[in-house]
């Protein structure tokens, strides 16, 4: 009768997580992160979401300064990711396309293993680097 246990647990999980038009929303994680200095806020979305294991995915990043000032012309970002516990990162070089209003399209990301990843968004303004880190459990 183990299947009954499983069914009960799943029903409880479903009730706890909620369901909207057939899409179960289990845990809405924050999609904004600040850089280490706190000077920049970064909103991000993944495509697809959730991130599929061992398949390419994209993200869109919107960077805003906390002081409300516009981003200067020389402002740039880089994106990379690591598995700190494994001693390696991703095997791809993501491509970044600058869009209007502090928005960046990032393509070519791939998390090839399950486990704890750290996704890094490195920002650079006036030669000064700053970093936002997004922890992701695959």
């Amino acid at each position, binding site marked *: 009768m183990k299947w009954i246990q499983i069914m009960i647990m799943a029903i409880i999980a479903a009730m706890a997580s909620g369901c909207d038009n057939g899409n179960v929303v*289990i845990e809405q994680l924050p999609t904004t992160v600040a850089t280490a200095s706190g000077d920049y806020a970064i909103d991000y979305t993944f495509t697809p979401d959730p991130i599929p294991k061992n398949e390419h995915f994209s993200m869109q990043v919107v960077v805003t300064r906390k002081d409300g000032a516009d981003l200067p012309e020389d402002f740039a970002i880089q994106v990379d990711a690591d598995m700190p*516990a494994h001693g390696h990162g991703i095997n*791809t070089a993501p491509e970044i396309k600058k869009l209007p209003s502090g928005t960046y399209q990032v393509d070519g990301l791939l998390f090839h293993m399950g486990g704890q990843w750290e996704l890094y968004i490195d920002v650079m303004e006036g030669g000064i680097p700053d970093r936002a880190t997004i922890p992701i459990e695959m």
Partner: protein
Amino acid sequence: MKPVPFFLSALLLWTVSCGKVRQTETSLGAGPITIRGITIPATNVLEILKLSPLPELPPNPTNQYADNEDAALLGQHLFFDSRLSANGEVSCATCHQAETDWTDQKPVSEGLETVTRNAPTLWNVAYQRWYFWDGRKDTLWSQALGPIEHPKEMGGSRLRSYLLLQSTEVYQSLYDKAFGPLPQLTSTSDFKDARPVAEDPSDQMHQNWQALKESDQEALNRVFSNIGKSMEAYQRQILSTAAPFDRFVDAILNWKEDDMDQLSDAAIRGMILFTGRGQCILCHTDSNFTDNEFHNIGLDRGERPLDQGRYPAIAQVKTDPFNGQGLYSDDTTLEANQALHYVAPKDNNLGEFKTPTLRNIANTAPYMHDGRFASLKEVLEFYSTLPDTPAIGHREESLQPLKLTEEELNDLEAFLNSLTGAPLNERLLKAPAI
């Protein structure tokens, strides 16, 4: 008991497809299962269910002939034809022998000369993302071309391959049906071998290649790529069949208690280790038991020359004229070639080798890229103790000595033995009758 199949299927579908979840489906959880007194924890159950069955064979848009029957038949002929080699004695089947699960059972292979790596099995080869132990090819059709021209393997050339098609009526007929008429060369020559040898322009084969008209070079490249595409069409049929493990998973999904004995107690315990404390599924993941990527597991140099593995292969695959974004690909779009387009060399690629499938693994000894381990027990003992200093680069740090007991080693081996399916249809194991 009947609701279980629907329920588990629904649970799986739900967990993998629904929701705004950054974490994986293990967030949901499922109940443990107890079989003959052995409890499989809930987290293991979810992982186990992902390991079977094999999904539908993925398409390869870079080869529009990948599922063409005439191309597959031509590829099967060529796979077993040693006339592609310089001495007429080496074929693809020399190292990938059908009767020994597409291996040669040697630590490292012997073509015209002894090479430095083990011949990997071809089981489920069409599911792979990269080819060769170092991934220096990105498509199966492109991979097939490498050994034909490798001076230590078959030592042939694209001209020799063309001449073989031209001189063999059944080959020419199949080529015509699959690809259209075999082009006629306009250069006059009396040599049998010609290919570009960029690393040594003084090589006679390169000299011969240079003597050909550019239009003939182009025609030969096109025919050669089609030969590779025909071999891919054949090899796409080398698919593992259901193993006891698959029947066990099916028994769980459909709650067929009578079929729970497909796995022995030892194999069930091994399966729990494999999907749990052993962390084997970090790399041997999904139903082909591979992540199709590369890892440095910390093997020492052994008795072979230093092998850098994945790192230099990335530049090779990016510049290969027969890659998926090259002139001879049938789909050069980014969508069809994301892996090739985005891959980039990283320091951690040094000393990495591709994760092999574990399907039919009990039949494909010896193991590792250089065939250093003669048995599964030796492989498992390596992972249990991790005794080596890596030959180059650094070991994947998630690997820690498992310190397995003798019983645990036996359990894991029993599980790996449960991944062996039935042989393929006899029709695919030899050259077709002419």
